[in-house]
């Protein structure tokens, strides 16, 4: 070790020694920094976790997809209730799907989906579920994987096969004791043969259903070929309600448009709106662009981080002021020591270094403890609540860096004040 680094090491050791002389005072001073650093890390971890959940839900929709859903128009809802027997016709049509496919550039696939709420029966069991009529590539777009058996095929679609695929959760409710495969289940008036079970790809159960933001659990879905949904249920759905019967005619409940890439999504969104606007006089559809939602979520997250970050930064600032206050008191208290050191040949920079090192030891020590507490705190929060927390490396680095910087910035003034003391005056100090 060369003399210079030795000198540095002994300065650090001296600083620690001086701090240990007033253990309680040093600990209390550190506490400000500990809380500051800890709150930076914990707040950012909670913020990150919250936005991660939202972002994951959006990502599930597929950033290359544009989702168009049928919406019952508000002005017609009342008429439907009054007009007995008259059927309300709204929503997306097969033609819409075909038009988008042919006219909008960059479209890879257009996935039509019919969603009907029905009870599904097996033996004595009856479970409310969603019957989704769709095409085989639904599985790729939504991100499902086959757990057992198979998904729907082109042949099923072509031959109007009465087959169905269950989500794992629905299968469990419907078949508590039996093997669901190859069983026949009854929906409305028809029987369907169970050919497969699916689950969401690499995600835990009970996530929100892909394709719907507010989401029914995906767990409750039953998939049948689109052609079957069309022929067995028909396009006019009649539902019993308090005032009588309600009839609606909806061709498609949802169209998912898969685009070539994210740029194509940007360009296609207004085109699709214009296209649909031309053929729909009523406002009976809505589009969801996951990519835009994702961008919005990222924007929100950024603002969130800035707000949380500033709150935490303020607490670090307060910690820094605490350090400065204590160091100024320490300098006054140790004026005589400063005088002695100056008489023994210490230059101003030696004195500056000595006090600066002390402050930095305080703040970096506090920073290290703060990092430890800050890493543990979100885990505790996550353990006792359902909140998800994500500790990012950059937040740890940021918090620690700021604590070090606080030490230097707030230590500089007291250290300079100590170095400026006149040695004669300092020696005379009692």
């Amino acid at each position, binding site marked *: 070790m060369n003399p210079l680094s030795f000198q540095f090491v002994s300065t650090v050791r*001296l600083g620690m020694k001086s701090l240990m002389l007033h253990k309680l005072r040093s600990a209390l001073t550190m506490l400000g920094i500990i809380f500051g650093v800890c709150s930076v890390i914990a707040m950012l971890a909670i913020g990150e976790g919250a936005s991660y959940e939202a972002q994951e839900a959006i990502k599930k929709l597929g950033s290359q997809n544009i989702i168009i859903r049928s919406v019952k128009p508000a002005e017609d809802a009342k008429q439907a209730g009054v007009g007995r027997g008259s059927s309300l016709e709204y929503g997306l049509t097969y033609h819409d799907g075909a038009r988008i496919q042919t006219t909008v550039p960059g479209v890879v696939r257009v996935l039509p989906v019919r969603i009907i709420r029905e009870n599904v029966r097996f033996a004595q069991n009856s479970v409310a579920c969603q019957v989704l009529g769709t095409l085989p590539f639904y599985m790729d777009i939504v991100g499902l994987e086959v757990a057992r058996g198979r998904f729907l095929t082109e042949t099923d679609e072509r031959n109007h096969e009465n087959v169905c695929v269950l989500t794992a959760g629905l299968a469990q409710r419907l078949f508590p004791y039996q093997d669901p495969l190859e069983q026949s289940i009854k929906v409305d008036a028809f029987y369907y043969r169970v050919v497969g079970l699916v689950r969401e790809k690499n995600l835990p159960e009970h996530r929100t259903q892909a394709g719907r933001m507010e989401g029914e659990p995906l767990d409750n879905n039953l998939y049948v070929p689109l052609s079957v949904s069309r022929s067995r249920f028909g396009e006019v759905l009649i539902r019993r309600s308090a005032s009588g019967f309600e009839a609606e005619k909806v061709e498609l409940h949802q169209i998912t448009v898969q685009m070539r890439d994210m740029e194509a999504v940007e360009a296609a969104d207004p085109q699709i709106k214009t296209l649909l606007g031309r053929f729909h006089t009523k406002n009976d559809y809505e589009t969801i662009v996951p990519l835009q939602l994702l961008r919005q979520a990222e924007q929100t997250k950024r603002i969130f981080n800035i707000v949380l970050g500033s709150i935490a930064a303020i607490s670090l600032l307060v910690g820094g002021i605490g350090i400065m206050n204590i160091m100024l008191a320490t300098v006054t208290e140790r004026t005589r*020591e400063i005088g002695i050191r*100056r*008489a*023994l*040949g210490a230059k*101003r920079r030696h004195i500056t270094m000595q006090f600066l090192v002390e402050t930095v030891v305080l703040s970096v020590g506090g920073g290290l403890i703060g990092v430890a507490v800050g890493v543990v705190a979100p885990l505790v929060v996550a353990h006792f609540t359902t909140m998800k927390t994500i500790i990012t490396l950059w937040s740890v680095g940021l918090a620690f860096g700021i604590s070090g910087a606080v030490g230097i910035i707030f230590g500089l003034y007291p250290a300079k004040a100590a170095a400026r003391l006149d040695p004669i005056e300092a*020696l005379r100090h009692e």
Partner: protein
Amino acid sequence: MPPAHDIIRLERIEKRYILGGEVEVRALCGVDLVVTPGSYVAIMGPSGSGKSTMLNLIGCLDRPTAGRYFLGGVDVSRMPDDQLSEARGQRIGFIFQSYNLIAQLTVIENIQVPLLYQGKDVRAHQDQCAKLADMVGLSDRLHHRPNQLSGGQQQRVAIARALVNDPLLILADEPTGNLDSHTGQEVLELIDHLNAQGKTIVLVTHDERIATRAHRVLHMRDGLIEREVVNRNGAAGRGTTPP
């Protein structure tokens, strides 16, 4: 004698202070002094005589308003702060009335402090420090704190500390002021011993009996050296001048 051989050479040194922004105080009014190597000089005088100011100037803790000060042949009267600090650490060993040890350091660490500020490697001087501690009779107290030592022991640590950089000059400011006469005697004998080994000593005191140990006694009054007594029978004198 060429100036380089003088330990201290003061030429018409003046020091003026401005008190309260208006009143000017002349603490020193043109002092001349030459101290040769190996001599033992005592400075006496009532308070307000300029004694302390003189000590601060000789100790390079302050700069004169006018005049020149050569310390070991080097003009230190116009040196910037950093160089002055270096001169202090390198050429002067201080012994204070109230010992002025650093409370949080052990005996050996206190002795090492001046080495640190000269950028010397403390570990390379471990033996030297131990030897100094042995010389002042504290080799069994190396790892004690100042508050575990008696006043006399503390002052002996301070003496060892003053010697660690092998300075040109030992500057003692009332070194026995806080001690009883017996331990004071021991400390003075130690200082005599240093002088006998060739160290140049400048000692400030109120006590006539202590001053008689020195070669030369300077009496100060009103910022000037009023008279000088050469004391051939000084305790230290025995070591350097033949009878």
